[in-house]
């Protein structure tokens, strides 16, 4: 059943790839962001899935590729004759070089040290970014415009979408193929037991540097694609948010599957796009989802579909229902809190002599002191939690 579900999921994903051609620029744009995020997260996960190296500074390599491509596009504007479709390759190459240099330093250590060094490198680049006006364009960044090439004018995003689709497929192809090469195999072994690998005569530091550089290059490819799409880049691309995104997306999606990060990146980019305009608490929900996945689904979403255990449709449905119940309850309570703690509500209260006046949420008028308003969501949430608890208990004893 899980296999069927997974295949269905991939089929839906495949259909989505073609969707922008029917739905126009807005969805082309969203689809482009999703694919770029998917490629970036997967490139990040090359380090983790294989070598168990957890980078908190991959925004640097993403940004390096993006800057390289925007610089190249400026050169094309000025008359350089390079077809636009090859531009992302330049981003990948530049990030490869940057990745080799920083990767050499970072991979001197592993484990938590590695994470902290990558974080520090990212902070360093981020703090230097605005200084180097010529290269990074200061706060405003640098911008360019896509020039027509090879018979396409690239004015609409649908045409850009083609480039992104093509290069993402190349990127995923490389990731898929790499796992099967001797070096890919060595990288897996490295993640399991670096010491043992050294006694087989492998220079593990060199392996890690090469792996890091490859991961950086693919991140740069993703960055380059964003450069082509956005036609503009500034140093904030090196900021903590860029580096945190692939981490969150990867582990929510499922870090031990080739396509897990892509799934996580697609979902979170999509949800982020929808929800961040509707609620101010999107980052909170994302954080809670991340922590819950780390706590209860170590394999992420994709990993939970791909376990060897057989689960009946009924159980899956109940579980999905339970998750739905508890998330509805959580969202209701958080949004209520956000409204009740807001300045606007405080002043309305003050206007009414400090009374707990009704507040409006989801087109409902709610009384903040009513036991029903808090009790019902709490009850619903508890039912949800109890349901999934019961399911996991019975799953353990079975």
């Amino acid at each position, binding site marked *: 059943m899980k296999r069927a579900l997974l295949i269905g999921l991939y089929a839906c994903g495949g259909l989505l790839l073609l969707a922008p051609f029917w739905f126009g620029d807005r969805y082309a744009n969203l689809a482009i962001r999703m694919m770029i995020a998917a490629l970036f997260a997967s490139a990040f996960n090359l380090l*983790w899935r294989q070598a*168990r190296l*957890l980078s*908190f500074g991959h925004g640097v390599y993403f940004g390096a590729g993006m800057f390289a491509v925007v610089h190249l596009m400026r050169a094309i504007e000025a008359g350089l004759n390079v077809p636009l479709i090859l531009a992302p390759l330049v981003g990948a190459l530049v990030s490869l070089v940057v990745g080799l240099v920083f990767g050499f*330093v970072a991979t*001197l*250590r592993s*484990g*938590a*040290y590695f*994470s*902290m*060094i990558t*974080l*520090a*490198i990212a*902070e*360093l680049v981020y*703090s*230097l970014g605005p*200084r*180097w*006006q*010529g*290269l990074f364009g200061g706060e405003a960044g640098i911008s360019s415009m896509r020039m027509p090439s090879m018979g396409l004018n690239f004015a609409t995003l649908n045409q850009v979408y083609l480039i992104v689709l093509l290069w993402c497929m190349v990127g995923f192809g490389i990731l898929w193929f790499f796992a099967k090469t001797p070096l890919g195999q060595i990288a897996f072994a490295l993640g399991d037991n670096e010491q043992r690998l050294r006694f087989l005569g492998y220079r593990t530091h060199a392996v890690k540097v090469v792996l890091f550089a490859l991961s950086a290059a693919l991140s740069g490819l993703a960055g380059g694609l964003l450069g082509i799409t956005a036609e503009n880049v500034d140093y904030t691309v090196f900021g*903590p948010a860029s580096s*945190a995104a692939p*981490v*969150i997306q990867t*582990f929510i999606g499922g870090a031990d599957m080739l396509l897990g990060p892509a799934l996580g990146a697609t979902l979170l980019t999509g949800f982020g796009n929808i929800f961040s305009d509707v609620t101010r*608490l999107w*980052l*909170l929900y*994302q*954080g*809670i989802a*991340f*922590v819950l996945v*780390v*706590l209860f689904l*170590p394999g992420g979403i994709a990993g939970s579909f791909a376990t060897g255990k057989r689960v009946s449709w009924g159980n899956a449905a109940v579980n999905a229902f339970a998750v739905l119940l508890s998330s509805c309850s959580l969202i209701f309570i*958080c949004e209520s*809190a*956000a409204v009740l*703690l807001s*300045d606007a509500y405080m002043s309305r209260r003050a206007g009414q002599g400090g009374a707990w006046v009704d507040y409006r949420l989801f087109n409902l008028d709610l009384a903040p002191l009513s036991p029903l308003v808090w009790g019902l969501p709490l009850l619903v949430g508890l039912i949800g939690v109890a349901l999934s608890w019961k399911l996991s208990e019975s799953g353990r004893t079975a």
Partner: protein
Amino acid sequence: MTYLLSSLVNGLVFGLLLFMVSAGLTLIFGMMGVLNFAHSSLYMLGAYLGYSIGRWTGFWPALLFAPLVVALIGAFIERFMLRRVHRHGHAQELLLTFGLALIIHEVVKLFYGPYPVEYAVPAELAQTAFSANGLNFPLYRLFIGAVAVSMFVCLFLLMKFTRVGLTVRAALSQPQMVEALGHNVGLVFLFVFAVGAGLAGLAGAVAGAFYPTGPNMADDLGSIVFVVVVVGGLGSLEGALIASLAIGLLTTLTVGLDWTLAGALAPVGLSEWASSIGGPFTITLSSLTGSLPFIIMLLVLLIRPAGLMGERA
């Protein structure tokens, strides 16, 4: 001269604040192997709780209760979250704390709003300790320094000379053995994490009254604290102290120095060439103050990978 003196003292105090925050982090890492990404968030929680509790009880009781509450939160995190993912390895623990940092940041903003709150120094400490050439030196700075120093002394004595320290260290290297001797290893870890969190909470409650207590205070300090811990050697209390002071002094003293690489090349006659290149050659040292800790960290890692006081890996 006044400038040098005041910079020295300011640097020392800032270094001691860094130490207060990094002490808990290095303690937890040294004892449990967990790199706590949420540590600076606990520091922020300490400040906000100090502010909230202080509104009811006044400053001094809040200074006691806020760290206690943070320690309880730490105990909760260890017991019900970290322990759950422990079997999946340290990376999973790190990810968990990373996620917790995201949540704490958003929750603080939900409850306290996006602006810094009015957490003020109590009247009895809002005085001038001494003045030199027209610059006052606030008493509260001395207070921060005093708290940090006593924290170091207590921790040092606790680790070196009591059974607690012995048990904890043994629990790390030989968990089964310690268990067999009748110690509850789980309880030891719970205790360590709670104490580490409580120390961060104390640092927050003390420093939050002086530095602004706002939702960005965790991000502001977080990465510098990592630098301190790496430079000092993960798990080494003495190393953390030395690194904190060094980074505090260095970032404070470089503020006045407008040196550039291009200037440094002047003796070999390359100054003009370097200036024409621009970019990194013309950045002044004073404008690099914020980046300096990270440069130091990279240098230390290249020259002495285990940190100043860390044991050779």
